[in-house]
């Protein structure tokens, strides 16, 4: 396999490197554009798992690293918000095996609710940051991240973006890094138990590590200098570097591979030798601010280029200091719920009953678009239940009794369960209605398994968590399971009675996603049973 020439996506390249490096556990929650990393890692033969959410994924990876195993936790950018609690605290703790956190950011929001720039997390938590620009670097930097993590016993953030994750380019699969040590538990109570008495030392230790890594990064080989015309020197990182190389083929370049801690002296010497020095970066002005904070004078981009993805055309405009309005690309056809999608009957009913719908993340967010226009809010994973309860608490009675929270099965497992607990603990005076749209899969990201499907990431059978049983166990007495596609009248009747019933109600709407049955058959599993009679 050494030096094999392969054509891989950035996600596949990360998986390939993790596999070659003997990573013992890959864990994450599916989310575009990160999902294929664990799927490919599993296909190669690695141990890959979907966790209920990113926080649990990272905590599991931390445990693996405490035990001396190499571990990788993957998530989309907003997933790191969910995992931020362990992310910040583990920075203070010595890991034994490598701990790699992959954040797949989505500038331009091809499939996300925001375009947050997760480079901020590296600086905020004090965790080294590597930014590959293509599949070869995704492969090489994963191996490098493992080496950095084990040398300084520190977690490393590998930040990808949509165009790195989902673009394919050629890689040479190199020799694997030095083999991992065998897992072994070494007690270190002072180092790993973050009570205040220990955490102070942990923070000082972290800053000392970062100083050492910053010095090492000046000659780490991760930051590449490409000589060019001295009239223009470009400092760039990630995919922006590729666009810039094409937009300004004669310029000199300093490509930043490890952006935190920054190789400040390398940047200073590069900038000093250029007549004009410009920072080209996608997203927030993060690099340019860090460079300026070090007392180095560089040119950035106009504010308009903070928004959306960069590309060759936009980099040309930045270099030409052109901030005139950009040409508007014609809008394409928007996505829509599939024909036969079980969500359709639900949203038609919610529309007909004029419900106020606190929504959530999944295909069903498309219920906000015509012909339904029956979804009134969507904030983040799991927010439907909390926002629905908040509306119920403050709205006048006539409106409060029309409020419904709608959440998918995978999203419910991710972060809906605590919302349900809140509903039982602090019930609104008017009661509340939660609808779980259980189509038996994580449909939106491409039909991944979750704790409610009874199958693992590798489509092997496992325990299946039943949402209605869980709801009954925590004290919700009104629990219904129904299939509006098969019997719309029954669903409408249950929902109408529940809205004004002043009780806490959970309605599980169960019918498999029309796309999932075929996939599960192909994978050799059994399609989820529907409560509805099968139609020919």
């Amino acid at each position: 396999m050494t030096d094999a020439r392969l054509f891989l996506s950035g996600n596949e390249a990360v998986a390939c490197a993790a596999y070659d490096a003997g990573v013992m556990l890959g864990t994450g929650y599916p989310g575009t554009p990160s999902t294929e990393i664990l799927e490919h890692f599993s296909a190669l033969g690695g141990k890959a798992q979907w966790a209920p959410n990113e926080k649990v994924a990272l905590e599991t990876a931390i445990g693996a690293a405490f035990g001396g195993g190499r571990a990788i936790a993957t998530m989309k950018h907003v997933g790191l918000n969910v995992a931020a609690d362990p992310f910040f605290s583990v920075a203070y703790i010595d890991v034994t095996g490598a701990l790699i956190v992959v954040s797949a950011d989505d500038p331009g929001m091809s499939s996300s609710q925001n375009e947050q720039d997760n480079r901020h997390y590296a600086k905020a938590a004090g965790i080294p940051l590597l930014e590959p620009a293509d599949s070869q670097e995704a492969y090489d930097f994963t191996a490098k991240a493992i080496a950095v993590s084990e040398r300084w016993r520190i977690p490393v953030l590998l930040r990808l973006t949509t165009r790195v994750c989902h673009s394919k380019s050629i890689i040479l699969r190199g020799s694997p890094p030095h083999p991992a040590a065998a897992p072994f538990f070494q007690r270190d109570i002072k180092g790993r138990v973050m009570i205040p008495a220990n955490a102070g030392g942990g923070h000082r230790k972290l800053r000392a590590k970062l100083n050492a890594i910053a010095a090492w990064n000046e000659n780490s080989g991760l930051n590449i200098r490409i000589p060019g015309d001295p009239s223009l020197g470009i400092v760039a990182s990630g995919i922006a570097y590729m666009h810039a190389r094409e937009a300004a083929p004669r310029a000199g370049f300093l490509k930043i591979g490890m952006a935190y801690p920054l190789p400040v002296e390398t940047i200073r010497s590069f900038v000093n030798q250029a007549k004009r020095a410009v920072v080209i970066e996608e997203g927030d002005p993060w690099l340019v601010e860090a460079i300026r904070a070090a007392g180095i004078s560089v040119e950035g981009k106009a504010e308009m280029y903070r928004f959306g993805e960069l590309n060759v055309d936009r980099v040309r405009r930045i270099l030409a200091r052109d901030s005139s309005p950009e040409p508007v690309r014609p809008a394409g056809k928007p996505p829509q719920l599939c024909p036969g999608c079980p969500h359709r009957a639900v949203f038609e009913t919610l529309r007909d009953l004029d419900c106020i719908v606190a929504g959530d993340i999944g295909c069903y967010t498309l219920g906000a678009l015509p012909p339904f226009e029956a979804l009134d809010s969507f904030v983040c994973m799991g927010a439907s239940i909390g926002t629905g309860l908040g509306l119920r608490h403050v709205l006048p009675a006539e409106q409060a009794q029309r409020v419904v929270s709608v959440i998918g099965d995978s999203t419910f497992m991710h972060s809906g369960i605590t919302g349900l607990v809140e509903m039982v603990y602090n019930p609104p005076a008017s009661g509340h209605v939660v609808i779980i749209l259980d189509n038996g899969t994580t449909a939106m990201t491409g039909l991944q398994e979750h704790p409610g499907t009874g199958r693992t990431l590798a489509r092997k059978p496992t325990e299946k968590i039943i949402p209605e049983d869980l709801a009954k166990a925590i004290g919700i007495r009104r629990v219904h399971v129904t299939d509006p596609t098969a019997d719309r009248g029954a669903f409408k009747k249950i929902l109408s009675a529940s809205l004004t019933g002043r009780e806490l109600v959970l309605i599980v709407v169960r019918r498999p996603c029309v796309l999932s049955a075929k996939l599960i058959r192909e994978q050799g599993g059994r399609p989820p049973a529907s409560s509805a009679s099968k139609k020919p």
Partner: protein
Amino acid sequence: MKTTNIVIAGLGGQGVLTSSDILAEAAFITGLDVKKSELHGMSQRGASVSSDVRFGRRIFSPMVPQGQADFLMVLEATQVDINRPVLRKDGISITPEQIDKKVLLHHRSLNIALLGALSRHLPDIAEPAWLQAIRAHLPATIRDINIRIFLLARKSDA
């Protein structure tokens, strides 16, 4: 050698991504530098989807700049206009109406027929590389019929 820029567009589920995978793989097998870019996610739900393939001696950005596509291959007539700005002035469109109905031996093989028509314009990629790429990306049950369709469209004068 000049970089060749190709954009493939259509609607989710039509085989846009499979076609761009085959095209990029054929360039890869030929030994060229190649990059392919696409967007996943929402595009699966019947929405507009497009994929960029670039090959040549050395490729940097994976995305085709506006007005620089040499070829625009479109699987759905409604998607021609919205993608036209990417095509260079004397660029070539490959569209469904250029495909002879007799070539379409299978109802879901428009993408392969269009690739066959496109392949006539790409002298850098030889026939065996195309066939190897098609075999690599299609399941065994539909491989032979698609290779026949590809070759018919490649040789057709349409």
